[in-house]
């Protein structure tokens, strides 16, 4: 039967049922994705906001400079010694983990065969996945049992946590250096090692620093590795790594266990300090990483 209507052009046809359904599904997915993103960002904002609100009241110069006194009544004391202790613990851990991590990354990227490279990468990922409490117990058994707690043991535990982070991120960044840049070095008559040190590493340097900074940010907040290894300390300023050293995360834990409500406030304040430092380091790392990407983008 002939239709007397003009046949509609497919492009101009009114929205058919199928098209309408597809559009609705598309819109639905877009909205769900947006909601998920808002939730994720919202969680972070919520954490920061609640820590800030609860902690800001106890922040003072005294708080930052006086030493912790978990057993004292009232709001005396502060986290001065914990800040110093964290600095020493993380500093020592960085000195141990960063050079080793960088060398591992250089070896796997520049000198290892494809099979070794994948094996090492796999093992680093496994190490990354080891729960930090297990690392803590391991270091306890290795360095503390039979002796005593020490800041050095705490640093080793932190270094074990940091190592796969540094190594993997340096690996990723070294792999981003364009092959043609390496070829230019080789073609000039530089040995493989010389090319790596003088050409590849400087090109990747910002990225490697970023990786190290992110590992430091992670180590600043690690509690479990230190719980058995550097947690029984006196409320005085300590800087000798052969003795247990206080650290901000462990102090937060101890403050929050105290029956004194004033100590809980101090725990929030310490958490605020910790999160502020970690955020700051992450932002610096991000700026550096953007700079590196821009520079490598120009080289491609």
């Amino acid at each position, binding site marked *: 039967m002939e239709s007397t209507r003009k046949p509609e052009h497919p492009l101009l046809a009114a929205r058919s049922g199928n098209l309408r359904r597809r559009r609705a599904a598309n819109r639905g997915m877009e909205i769900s994705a947006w909601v998920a993103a808002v939730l994720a960002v919202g969680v972070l904002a919520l954490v920061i906001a609640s820590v800030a609100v609860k902690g800001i009241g106890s922040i003072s110069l005294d708080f930052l400079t006086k030493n912790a006194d978990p057993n004292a009544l009232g709001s005396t004391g502060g986290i001065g010694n914990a800040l110093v202790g964290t600095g020493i613990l993380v500093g020592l851990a960085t000195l141990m983990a960063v050079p080793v991590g960088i060398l591992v990354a250089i070896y796997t990227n520049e000198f290892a065969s494809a099979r070794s490279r994948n094996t090492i990468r796999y093992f680093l990922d496994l190490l990354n996945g080891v729960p930090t409490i297990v690392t803590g117990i391991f270091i306890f058994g290795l360095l503390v049992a039979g002796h005593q707690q020490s800041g050095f043991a705490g640093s080793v535990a932190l270094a074990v946590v940091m190592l796969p982070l540094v190594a993997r991120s340096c690996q990723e960044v070294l792999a981003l250096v364009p092959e043609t840049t390496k070829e*230019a070095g080789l*073609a000039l008559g530089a040995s493989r090692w010389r090319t790596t040190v003088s*050409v590849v590493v400087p090109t990747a340097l910002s990225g490697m620093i970023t990786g190290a900074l992110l590992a430091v940010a992670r180590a600043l907040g690690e509690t479990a590795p230190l719980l058995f290894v550097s947690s029984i300390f006196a409320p005085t300023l300590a800087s000798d790594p052969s003795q247990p050293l206080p650290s901000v995360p462990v102090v937060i834990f101890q403050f929050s266990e105290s029956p004194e409500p004033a100590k809980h406030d101090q725990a929030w304040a310490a958490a605020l300090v910790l999160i502020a430092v970690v955020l700051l380091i992450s932002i610096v790392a991000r700026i550096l990483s953007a700079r590196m990407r821009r520079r490598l983008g120009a080289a491609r």
Partner: protein
Amino acid sequence: MNYNPTDDLTVVDPEEKTMPRSPGHAESSAPTPAPPVTSEVASGLEEMHATRHVRLDELHAYYGDNHAVRGVNLSFEPGRVTAIIGPSGCGKSTMVRCVNRMHEEIPGARSAGRVLLDDVDLHGANVDVVTVRRLVGMVFQKPNPFPTMSIFDNVASGLKFTGTPRGEITDRVHFALEGAGLWSEVEGRLSSTGMSLSGGQQQRLCIARALAVEPDVLLMDEPCSALDPVATLKIEQLIGQLKEKVTIAVVTHNMQQAGRVADTTAFMLDGEVVEVGPTEKMFTNPDDQRTEQYVTGKFG
């Protein structure tokens, strides 16, 4: 006392000298009209003179099982520019990368046959690959200055790899930049990054970097294919001026470019050198039918 790297190379069997010249040896050709020699290029590198010739003797190259270069016999004469033309994938870049032994950097790649620099086989058992690359420089298709280094440091990098004393470096960088025709454009900003230059300038920077170590041979692998016509013209003029100072071989997929810069042209197809001869003859009256079909554009 100038560093003479050929002292490090062992001399091949002296009876080689009596072997007949390979068919790749070019007869004197009608010289291409010389572009005006700028005083800048003339004064730069004025102590360099091309004297060494390169001879490929039954050169084979493989990528795993892929036989990319099949028994090539070819010469690059000093004082002349040799162009290697051919369709994509014919093995011209592979062949040229065998001369400075960059081919073997690729995993799974190997080569056979000899590459003689005067009397010395660069692929010989006792020859150090790093030394080879100081004698045979290379300029790549896409300009690849080191991204983290300034213009000065880029040109000086090859000198630093060879351990040139600091006092000499500044002068040699100056001469190399003059020799590449770049000095007048960058003399006020030697410390700015190499990436701030235009594409053509970056390529001339790479040429300066290669020339700074005063190699005997300069290999150019499609040096202008990533550049605009104005930059291309400048580099072609530069090649004409440099041929007295260093033995030059240029790989190009642009036949007209071969016609403009080269004294001798070799045509490669499927890994073999089909024909080699004076450029004018190759383009107007070649011996081999395949050459004629290629240069008249019957296939590309």
